[in-house]
């Protein structure tokens, strides 16, 4: 394996229950990959482990010298407190963290870049709005503006289009496409299979264990999807079975 990020026999567990089971493979430099699978398949766990937010139980993630500043991460909106008293410009300016660090001031040039990033995502003039006043779609645009400022060669997106309107999704997909054309490696957790088939050349199909990883047309076959669903049904039945015993 010699991608930009390699995964070797990776298992990640919560309370000793594996959420990702013996996954191996490689993300090629400049690839655009969708991670798909049923609910509870371990998609977010996998992406968090690649970022370094979770630790492998066994196996490893090889980042080949990529540091924190080389990987930009978009968390799920549910993981962010959107009632927090912070405005749009300050949120986007966090994308300059690699330059400012813990204490550095943001110079006028930095604020200009913040304004440019906001214009790029269609939120020109929104800098002083509190994030609590934004719709889910507008807030996702803000987070994409922050990603633009991070300017990282590897970008990881956890459910970037969940509960987002169609127009915003189309605009943000165009940004992802632009990143891909610029040679950045983009990995996104997604649910919409049609979207994946249309826009993502590579797919990783996960159902706690790896079902398939490669060109989307070869991975998203009826057989593979049926197998993923059957495995998911297995966890649900197992869970209900255990719950029945507990009751």
């Amino acid at each position, binding site marked *: 394996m010699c991608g930009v990020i390699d995964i070797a026999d990776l298992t990640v567990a919560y309370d000793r229950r594996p959420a990702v089971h013996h996954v191996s493979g490689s993300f090629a430099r400049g690839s655009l990959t969708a991670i798909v699978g049923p609910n509870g398949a371990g998609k977010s766990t996998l992406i968090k482990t690649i970022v*370094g*937010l979770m630790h492998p139980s066994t196996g490893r993630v090889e980042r080949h010298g990529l540091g924190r*500043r080389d990987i930009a*991460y978009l968390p799920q909106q549910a993981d*962010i407190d959107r009632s*927090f*008293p912070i405005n749009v410009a300050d949120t986007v300016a966090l994308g300059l963290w690699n330059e400012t660090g813990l204490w550095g001031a943001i110079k006028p040039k930095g604020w200009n870049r913040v304004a440019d990033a906001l214009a790029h995502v269609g939120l020109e003039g929104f800098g002083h709005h*509190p994030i609590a006043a934004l719709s889910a779609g507008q807030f996702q645009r803000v987070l994409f503006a922050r990603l633009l400022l991070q300017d990282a060669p590897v970008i990881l997106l956890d459910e970037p289009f969940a509960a987002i309107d169609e127009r915003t999704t189309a605009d943000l997909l165009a940004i992802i496409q632009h990143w891909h054309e610029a040679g950045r490696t983009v990995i996104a957790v997604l649910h919409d299979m049609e979207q994946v088939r249309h826009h993502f050349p590579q797919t990783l199909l996960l159902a706690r264990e790896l079902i398939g990883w490669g060109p989307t047309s070869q991975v998203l076959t009826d057989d593979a999807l049926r197998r993923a669903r059957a495995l998911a049904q297995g966890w649900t039945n197992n869970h209900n079975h255990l719950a029945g015993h507990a009751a």
Partner: protein
Amino acid sequence: MSLYATAIAPFADYGFMRRALVACLALALGSGPIGTFLVLRRMSLMGDAMSHAILPGAAIGFLVAGLSLWAMSVGGLVVGLAVALLAGIVSRATSLREDASLAGFYLISLALGVLIVSTRGSNVDLLHVLFGSILSVDDQALLLVASISTLSLVALAFIYRPLVVECFDPGFLRAVAGRGSLYHVVFLVLVVLNLVAGFQALGTLMAVGLMMLPAAAARFWASAVWSLAALSAFIAFVSGWAGLLVSYNFNLPSGPAIILTAGAVYSFSIVFGRHGSLRNRYFPGAHFHN
């Protein structure tokens, strides 16, 4: 009765009132911003639990050295931090959530503290530890409170940016800077330190009042973290000043008078605040003209 006689004369005439007022100012400067972060981190009840956790430490200090400021402060600090640490370890090592494990520890702490004080002290000593006495704050206690406030403001300035980011987007902070838990630990130390400062004046049971009520009230008026912290400190100081006057003029205990004044500001804010108040929610068209 003139305004001077009501609002200023008590402080001009009596040294103990002046010291109490300065203690309120020092407490407000530290507790306001700390309380703001407790509210923003949804840890308000944790602050309450931690304030009770200080009691057995203060009681052990009392047992060893009597009503000694330093012994009780160091005891409170050590036990407060130990309880916070233990609650964190229990919630990570077991399936119990952190708030539940903290509640368990604080109840044990409270009972243990009362038990320790009552084995040696009188009811008056117990009341002093539980409810404090801001009017008996001496120069030494004042220095301790002022030092803790200064240290808190300097420490907050150092960890301000990561603390803010950790509040609203912890995943991002860990991805760009790592060490999210380091800032959490530093913040917990500051919480315990400020509670120790507060308990000199207000006792373990009410120390958290000057931290939480002004911060919760400020949430209804300010809309940025720095203005929340500043307003919270201002409300805490005004509550201290007004509470001392109420206590002096109506011959009421000072601690409850201060906390109830802060409570009145909080209640007013719930009804009339600019952001998310009852007025805002149910009468969105109504505006007050200055």
